[in-house]
């Protein structure tokens, strides 16, 4: 991991000054703000079984699919198209350091986007809530949801980085990321809605399927349950994607 810190600092600086990241941030806040706004409106009309914060987090897949590909698509595809990646590889920086620096930078940006959402529920609560009334959102749900975003974000961002390593086109990288994330999230949602428990012939699927229940993980985190299985799933998935990214970068150059 030679030169990791130098590369990370450079990537963070570049991320801050890249206009497309600011555009992505604007899109993200508009999207999440709108979801939160409509959730509050729904709650104000009639009592709902969920709070606005819960509703916002349950729709996390929307910004995930629309915004995250924009953050990761340029990381390798654009550098490869410009030829700057091969110039970078002539230095003593290791490929692993380059991949990890880009990954951590994109992950930090993704987490910062979600942290920028925090003022929405906090301000709403400050303006509208009555003390000890949790109808607008339980703080535990808020922080649990953020923890889920941070942990699952590791795998989601790593998938984006891997997709960007596979092509020279940033657009194609975004499309690949979108499809993979859609598959992952939909698979989790679909498995969750299937009555696997009642199908005896699918009994073998019960255990592995339990690991892929993305929305179940979100609920666990939001209710303060710290299950080690999703943690292991997201962390091993992240290492797998980043390992493949290193191989892809070395192989393609």
């Amino acid at each position, binding site marked *: 991991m030679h030169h990791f810190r*130098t590369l990370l600092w450079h990537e963070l600086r570049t991320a801050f000054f890249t206009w497309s990241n600011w555009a992505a941030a604007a899109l993200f806040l508009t999207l999440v703000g709108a979801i939160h706004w409509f959730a509050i409106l729904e709650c104000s009309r009639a009592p709902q079984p969920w709070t606005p914060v819960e509703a916002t987090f349950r729709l996390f897949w929307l910004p995930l699919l629309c915004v995250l590909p924009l953050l990761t698509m340029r990381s390798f595809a654009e550098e490869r198209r410009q030829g700057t990646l091969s*110039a970078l*590889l*002539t230095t*003593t920086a290791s490929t692993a350091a380059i991949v990890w620096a880009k990954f951590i930078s994109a992950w930090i940006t993704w987490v910062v986007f979600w942290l920028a959402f925090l003022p929405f529920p906090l301000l709403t609560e400050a303006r509208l809530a009555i003390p000890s009334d949790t109808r607008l959102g339980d703080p535990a749900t808020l922080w649990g949801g953020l923890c889920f975003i941070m942990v699952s974000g590791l795998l989601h961002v790593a998938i984006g980085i891997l997709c960007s390593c596979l092509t020279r086109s940033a657009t194609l990288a975004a499309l690949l990321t979108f499809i993979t994330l859609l598959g992952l999230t939909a698979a989790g949602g679909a498995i969750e809605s299937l009555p696997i428990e009642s199908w005896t012939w699918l009994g073998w699927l019960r255990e592995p399927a339990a690991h892929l229940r993305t929305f179940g993980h979100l609920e666990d985190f939001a209710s303060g349950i710290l299950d080690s299985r999703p943690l292991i799933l997201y962390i091993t998935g992240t290492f797998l994607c980043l390992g493949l990214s290193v191989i892809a970068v070395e192989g393609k150059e």
Partner: protein
Amino acid sequence: MAESSPQPKAAVAAESLTKRYGNLVAIEDLTFSVAPGEIVGFLGPNGAGKSTTMRILSGTMAGTSGRASIWGESVALNPTAAKRHMAYMPENNPLPEDLKVEEYLSLRARLKDVESKQVADRVRKVMEDCDLVRRASGRLIGQLSKGFRQRVGIADALLAKPKVVILDEPTIGLDPHQILGIRDLIRSLRGEMAVLISSHILHEVEQVCDKVVIINRGRLVAQGKTEDLRRELLPDSVFHILSRASLNEISAVCLQNEKLSLVEKIGEIEGGWCRYQVTMPSQSPARETLAGSLIQAGLPLREIAEQHCGLEDIFIAATRRSPQERNRA
């Protein structure tokens, strides 16, 4: 920065280097070397495999077989050590558009293991050497002209004082003033760094390089000093004569001096003046007496000149012959 390690015999060594893409052979059995402090021109027609060879030497591409080493370190087995001794400027010199020149060079200096305390000094020094201080230092790279971008690329290559600099077409797209500047800069590296430079401007290479390596269709066809290659590849001297004498008269004098002379009439201009071409072995003593003999014979002579065979002629002769012929030679 490049560590002070014992000086090896060859700063750059390619031994039986081969690169295949499926059935396509990009380079095959390429063997050459560059001595420390030497400037070597790496020549070949388009598609000959120059850039592929340079990329393998720089460690950005793996060869199929053979061995490439930089300052004694194997590029494949010990890439970090090899890269520490080497700087590579690829063809088209890719640079990030959204960084300022100084920022970019500072980042590259850190990535090239220049000590933190020395980064600012080294950046300033290479910017001065490459004439970037006044007109480019604070500007975004994306706003620079082609000439300044090339200078940034060369400044980057010199940052860590490497033992070996590999430059792929460093003067491509530059105007004559800029070419002169880059040429002087490369010349100033002689003795300090080994430079392997590929260029299509043969005059340029002839002016700057101590030695040339010529490849064609991925194979080595010639290598050595220009003078040695001239003797090897162009064994005949060619004279151009402008005279009113007949072909027989000229031939008689030439054959008297050198039995292997070949005289051809190549054109006629006004007033009965004709152009002749005389070819004879370049080792023949008749080269020095030919003009005197023609005058002594009383032949009307207006002009006699020996054709200068430049690197261009050597290049054409070398790339025309097959690798088999080269092996026989």
